[in-house]
């Protein structure tokens, strides 16, 4: 290849130019993200079951759906959340399934399951994944009194949502916040009684208008019964004229108006009551494109609706833009550091120019190839490029140095020096590149989560390495022809740097040579053993003591500036009372200078996945966007403590979890520590869960803990005496329909027509408890027109039931979740397991479902990848060097670098994690290059006729400077990553910590032990 391109300089330059240009285009147009999409495909089935309780929903709706989905292929987990009136079934599939295939399969399963579901249940399918997270959340609130929130909701549903959806750049728009339109029918009870009309008859007549419309009954303060009918505006006139009885129209006994339904969901954006528009991207879309389009449309909408206030209350855009900008700055800094190192170690301005020119070429060519392959830009890709810097500079310098050596020492002329010099180093450079690729290659196929996160990194690295190899044997020789056009003379600055080097680092050669000489002295066997033992002992002691101390994480916690809080008030509370209690807190929040926006979503709305989704009406998810960590003094964990303290002062707050966005590795993991108990019988779960929670409450490092559901919702049970009821000509169902006459009933527990059950359940809002007494005397009209008080027909009592029940893997499940600041997951989970031994868990299946599950799986895979990588490397080396002995020596030196890796992690306060494992792999890849070059020169010297010992010493002398330069160059390049100079790098910095620590120690040790063993194990005579 060298010869081919050497003879065709124009072809070379045009090729480089083309890639350069493509690279610039790529940098501008590639979709940008924070981390690669790593969430598995999820399909969610939401079913509305009007009037059913959590228990009924779980057993009649979720169970059949789960059973059908369980039969599908590649299903990883099926879980469900069941609350009054709705069921949410989540099916998580393996990566291999793919989103479209998953959705189709679930749709088919559902069509089979539909026949087993109750008649009025309507399931709907949604796909979920990384694209579910809203790109932007726009908060709509009234600017003045001329428009109300209910009207804004109508406008949002009917006009704004379709308008935004018509823009092809926007994926999906979800509207959230309650106030859904409905027709209010306020019945005057006196008038109704006058005509002898009861609610039962009314309900039947109205239902006849449209079979599928659900009805809700509520009594308001002034004794009017309100029936809410979810119909269309046009029907108001129709309803007014509806004949209820001969000569009686509905408008005679009721006021009918177009209004909104009683709320089971709510939204507050930036502290104001609002309606939220959640903008999502399409599954493979780019966040920034969608966000730009959205904001442009919002500007247009602002002009169209002058009375509505449009604000952004949550966004991904800032984080991604900041991260990308930070990374480009980090790249710039890495380049500067690397070039500086070259100058110090080489004192050669031509090398500097060569490196400075090759860096942008490699960068843009890599960008171009990523773009051609259809990738995206994220922190992982940028990190890969920064990592590649050190390595690629190395290639260029090696070639250049050798050409110079040919000119200086061998006194060849320019052309010959270039040709001979390059040819000489093609093999070692190629070997080094192949060796590094070989060790990293298995990581691309490690499978599952690690593969999704790190494959882009390895791919980018491999591309960068190959491009760098190509450039170093084609471009650098051409460039040297120009660089050395005036000979190899050094300038004054260069000479000054050279002197600096010789007087400082250059002197370190002597100790090395001294050690080698030491190992060849008297009783050399003993000496060599001593040296070996020393280093092995250090390795063992370091690893044994440090690894357990630093613990393990999947990915270390990062400070993105986005804080999430999950709060809950009493299960019997309403959205309105919850909002009222939260307002003072939000006022305080927005007065803090580190807060930029806040978004609070109460309750659940059918069909909305990005907000709420599984929350009860008085439960809320709060998302707070703080300024990025470079603009404030406090860490995100300190801010979380402040917020948690403030929230704890609110009256009646039951759950108060505050944690950082991205606290878990995947969005399907509910909490960092998540203990799950499962059983076919849900009643036994809550007491055991309380016991577990009590026991884990003293684990260090936790910030909060809570149960995912509990039996703490008060409902009123009517035990209907069916015999007595029938003696009056009534069925339990007919009694149920007459109930709302005097109480505030939110939903009836027996709207399912097939139910002949005795138990009827009522959910009462507000002053519910006074109404149980009211219910006692409630007149129920029997078949013969006789009125009987309810307490004659039924025994009324209170009961505590769950407001929400969860299921997982076909059993009922309850999660005890706990959040942490930065303590490693393995330590927390080990503590939890210790304490769990004291809890009696008979009858339930207990499992750890937090980060630990993913951690164990990922670590296993990573270790396998490392093992395979090393094996592959060994075989590659044997092939290149045609010597098993030498190859084994090179491999054996690799673990020595782990000493530095371990200390690096300890001193930088990082746990073992997936990035650190990748760092280990990279470390090996870099160290091996040095070993390769050492051995190469050793073989060359041996071939020249030196003794093994002399060859060893000479190779050290030859390679000391370049090895040092490579090591420090790579370290310099990794400094921005290790120092976390970009948002999000806290997750990847262990990679740099491992690499830097390992390189420092490893390089020093390689220079001693590789030559030592090379000559010591030589069978030839010394």
């Amino acid at each position, binding site marked *: 290849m060298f010869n081919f391109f050497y003879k065709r300089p124009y072809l070379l330059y045009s090729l480089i130019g083309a890639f350069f240009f493509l690279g610039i285009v790529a940098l501008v147009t590639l979709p940008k993200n924070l981390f690669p999409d790593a969430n598995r495909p999820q399909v969610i089935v939401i079913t509305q079951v009007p009037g059913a309780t959590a228990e009924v929903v779980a057993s009649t709706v979720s169970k059949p759906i789960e059973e059908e989905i369980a039969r599908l292929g590649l299903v990883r987990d099926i879980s469900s959340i069941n609350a009054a009136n709705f069921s949410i079934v989540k099916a998580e599939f393996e990566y291999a399934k793919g989103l479209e295939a998953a959705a189709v399969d679930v749709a088919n399963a559902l069509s089979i399951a539909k026949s087993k579901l109750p008649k009025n249940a309507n399931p709907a399918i949604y796909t979920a994944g990384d694209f579910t997270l809203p790109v932007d959340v726009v908060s709509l609130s009234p600017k003045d009194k001329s428009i109300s929130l209910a009207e804004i909701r109508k406008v949002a549903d009917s006009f704004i949502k379709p308008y935004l959806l018509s823009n092809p750049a926007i994926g999906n728009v979800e509207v959230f916040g309650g106030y859904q339109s409905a027709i209010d029918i306020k019945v005057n009870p006196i008038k109704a*009684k006058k005509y002898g009309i009861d609610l039962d008859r009314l309900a039947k007549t109205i239902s006849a208008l449209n079979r599928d419309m659900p009805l809700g009954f509520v009594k308001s303060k002034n004794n009017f019964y309100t029936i809410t009918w979810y119909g269309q505006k046009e029907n108001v006139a129709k309803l007014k004229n509806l004949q209820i009885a001969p000569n009686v129209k509905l408008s005679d006994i009721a006021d009918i108006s177009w209004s909104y339904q009683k709320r089971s969901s709510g939204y507050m954006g930036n502290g104001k009551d609002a309606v939220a528009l959640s903008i999502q991207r399409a599954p493979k879309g780019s966040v920034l494109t969608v966000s730009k389009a959205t904001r442009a449309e919002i500007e247009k909408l602002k002009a169209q609706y002058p009375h509505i206030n449009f604000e952004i209350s949550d966004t991904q855009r800032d984080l991604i833009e900041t991260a990308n900008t930070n990374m480009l700055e980090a790249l710039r800094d890495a380049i500067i550091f690397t070039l500086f190192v070259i100058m110090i170690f080489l004192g050669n301005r031509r090398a500097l120019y060569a490196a400075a020119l090759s860096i942008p070429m490699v960068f843009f060519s890599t960008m171009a190839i990523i773009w051609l392959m259809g990738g995206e830009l994220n922190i992982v890709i940028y990190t890969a490029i920064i990592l590649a810097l050190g390595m690629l500079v190395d290639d260029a310098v090696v070639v250049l140095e050798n050409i110079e050596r040919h000119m200086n020492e061998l006194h060849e002329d320019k052309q010959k020096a270039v040709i001979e010099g390059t040819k000489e180093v093609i093999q070692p450079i190629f070997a080094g590149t192949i060796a590094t690729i070989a060790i990293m290659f298995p990581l691309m196929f490690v499978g599952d989560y690690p593969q999704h996160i790190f494959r882009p990194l390895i791919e980018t690295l491999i591309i960068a390495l190959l491009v760098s190899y190509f450039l170093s044997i084609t471009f650098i020789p051409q460039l040297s022809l120009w660089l050395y056009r005036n000979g190899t003379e050094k300038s004054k600055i260069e000479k000054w740097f050279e002197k600096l080097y010789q007087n400082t680092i250059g002197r370190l050669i002597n100790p090395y040579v001294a050690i080698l000489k030491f190992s060849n002295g008297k009783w050399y066997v003993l000496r060599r053993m001593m040296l070996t033992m020393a280093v092995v002992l250090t390795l063992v002691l*370091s690893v044994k*003591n440090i690894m357990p*101390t*630093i613990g393990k994480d999947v990915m270390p916690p990062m400070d993105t500036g986005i804080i999430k809080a999950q709060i809950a008030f*009493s*299960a*019997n*509370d309403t959205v309105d009372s919850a909002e009222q209690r939260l307002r003072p807190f939000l006022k305080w929040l927005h007065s803090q200078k580190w807060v930029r926006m806040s978004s609070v979503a109460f309750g659940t709305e059918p069909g909305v996945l990005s907000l709420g989704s599984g929350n009860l009406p008085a439960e809320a998810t709060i998302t707070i966007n703080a300024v990025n960590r470079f603009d404030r003094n406090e860490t995100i964990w300190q801010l979380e403590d402040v917020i*948690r303290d403030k929230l*704890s*002062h*609110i*009256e*009646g*707050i*039951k759950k*108060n979890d505050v944690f950082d966005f991205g606290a878990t590795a995947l969005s399907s993991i509910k909490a960092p520590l998540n203990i799950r108990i499962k059983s076919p019988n849900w009643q036994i779960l809550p007491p055991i869960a*309380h016991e577990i929670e*009590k026991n884990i*409450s*003293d*684990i*260090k*490092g*936790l*910030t*909060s*803990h809570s149960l995912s559901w*509990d039996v*703490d*919702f*008060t409902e009123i049970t009517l035990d209907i005496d069916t015999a007595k009821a029938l003696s*009056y000509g009534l069925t339990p169902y007919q009694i149920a329909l007459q109930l709302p006459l*005097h109480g505030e009933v939110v939903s009836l527990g027996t709207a399912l027509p097939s139910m002949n059950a005795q138990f009827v359940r009522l959910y009462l809002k507000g*002053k519910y*408890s*006074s*109404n*149980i*007494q*009211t219910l*006692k*005397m409630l*007149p129920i009209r029997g078949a013969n027109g*006789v*009125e*009987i*008080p309810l*307490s*004659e027909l039924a025994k009324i*009592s*209170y009961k*505590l039931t769950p407001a929400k029940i969860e299921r997982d893997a076909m059993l009922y499940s309850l999660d005890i979740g*706990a959040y942490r600041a930065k*303590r490693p997951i393995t330590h927390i989970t080990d503590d939890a397991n210790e304490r769990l031994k004291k809890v009696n868990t008979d009858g339930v299946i207990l499992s750890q479902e937090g980060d630990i599950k993913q951690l164990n799986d990922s670590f296993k895979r990573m270790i396998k990848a490392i093992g395979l990588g090393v094996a592959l490397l060994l075989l590659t080396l044997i092939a290149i060097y045609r010597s098993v002995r030498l190859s084994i020596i090179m491999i054996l030196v690799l673990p020595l670098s782990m000493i530095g890796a371990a*200390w690096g992690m*300890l*001193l930088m*306060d990082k746990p073992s994690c997936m990035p650190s494992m990748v760092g280990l792999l990279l470390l090996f890849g870099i160290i091996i290059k040095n070993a390769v070059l050492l051995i190469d020169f050793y073989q060359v010297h041996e071939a020249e006729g030196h003794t093994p010992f002399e060859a060893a010493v000479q190779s050290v002398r030859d390679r000391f400077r370049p090895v040092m330069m490579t090591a420090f160059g790579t370290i310099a390049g990794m400094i921005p990553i290790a120092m976390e100079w970009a948002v999000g790098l806290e997750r990847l910095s262990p990679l740099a910590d491992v690499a830097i620590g390992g390189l420092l120690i490893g390089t020093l040790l390689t220079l001693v032990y590789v030559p030592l063993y090379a000559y010591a194990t030589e069978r030839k005579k010394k």
Partner: protein
Amino acid sequence: MKNIIRVLIILVVIALLVIGGIKAVKDKRAKEAALPPAKTYTIKVKTIKVEPKDITLTLPILAIVENDSDVKISSKVAERVESINKSRGQKVKKGEVLVKLDSRDVNSKILALKSKIFSMQINLNNLQTIHKRSKQLLKVDGVSVEQFEKEASSIASLKAQIASLKAGLAELYALKTYTVLKSPIDGVVSKLFVSVGDMAMPGKPLMQISSPKGAYIVVRVPSDINAKSLIFKNKEYPLTPLDNTFNSLNEYRTPHIEDNLTEGQRVDGKLVVYKGKGILLPNDLILNRDAQEYIVLANGKKGEGFKISPVAQGQEGVVVKDTRIADKDIVSEKPDILLKLLSGAPLEIIK
């Protein structure tokens, strides 16, 4: 010398590294051990204080209005209805004419009797005149004693006949009153059973007059509820049991209520189920658990469960007699918060 120094330096450096390393590991372990566990926050609650006082507990009830002063106007005579002077819904005063029946029959009977009495009276007069003469004649023995006594007995029997006819006439006059029916009370014509031309029969009601003064309220209450009185339109009325059941419900009635009530009307009222001294606890702060009722007392930072046995329950709350809870802080929060306090969560009272 140089060698020894060099060796010493190397040893010192190694020693420093080892000590530094051990310290770093120890520091990290200490830092982790010093991490605090999750903070236990106090739950902020509101409390109330209660005192013994006079309490009235009520339950809302739908009652029915009945009227016992309704008069049904009926006739004793079987006559045709000639005119109806007051229509349905009209107000009537005591003494006003309501219905007129056909009185011609009675009138002619009266006439006949009158004339018969008249003729008999004339007869009598004649006989009396004769008798007078006979008496004078008897003195002069002009007539026989027998004739004189015969005349006397004829006069007597004629007097008796006239008297009985007069009695008969009085009866007819009485009957005549039944052809003009007047209202015995002030009221409203609430029901009309006949029309003009119908035949009125003795005992068959012709119309009903309802008096507003006669209305009272009847409540029907399940046997397990003790009804003491009824509050209607903010006035309290005592309830008298009727010792009668209606579809197995006990019936009670109030005394007469003057308030424009119509019979059959359904009214909202409040049934008083308890009246007396005691402590009233609002329903909101009672926790029902395993069929027992509890309240939670705030004692410093802890919530203590206190079993209560209500003596009565109404829509205002429940009444307990246990004075131990007077002057204590009772937690006023939703049941699941109370449950959390009972399971040990610390609390903090807020105003």
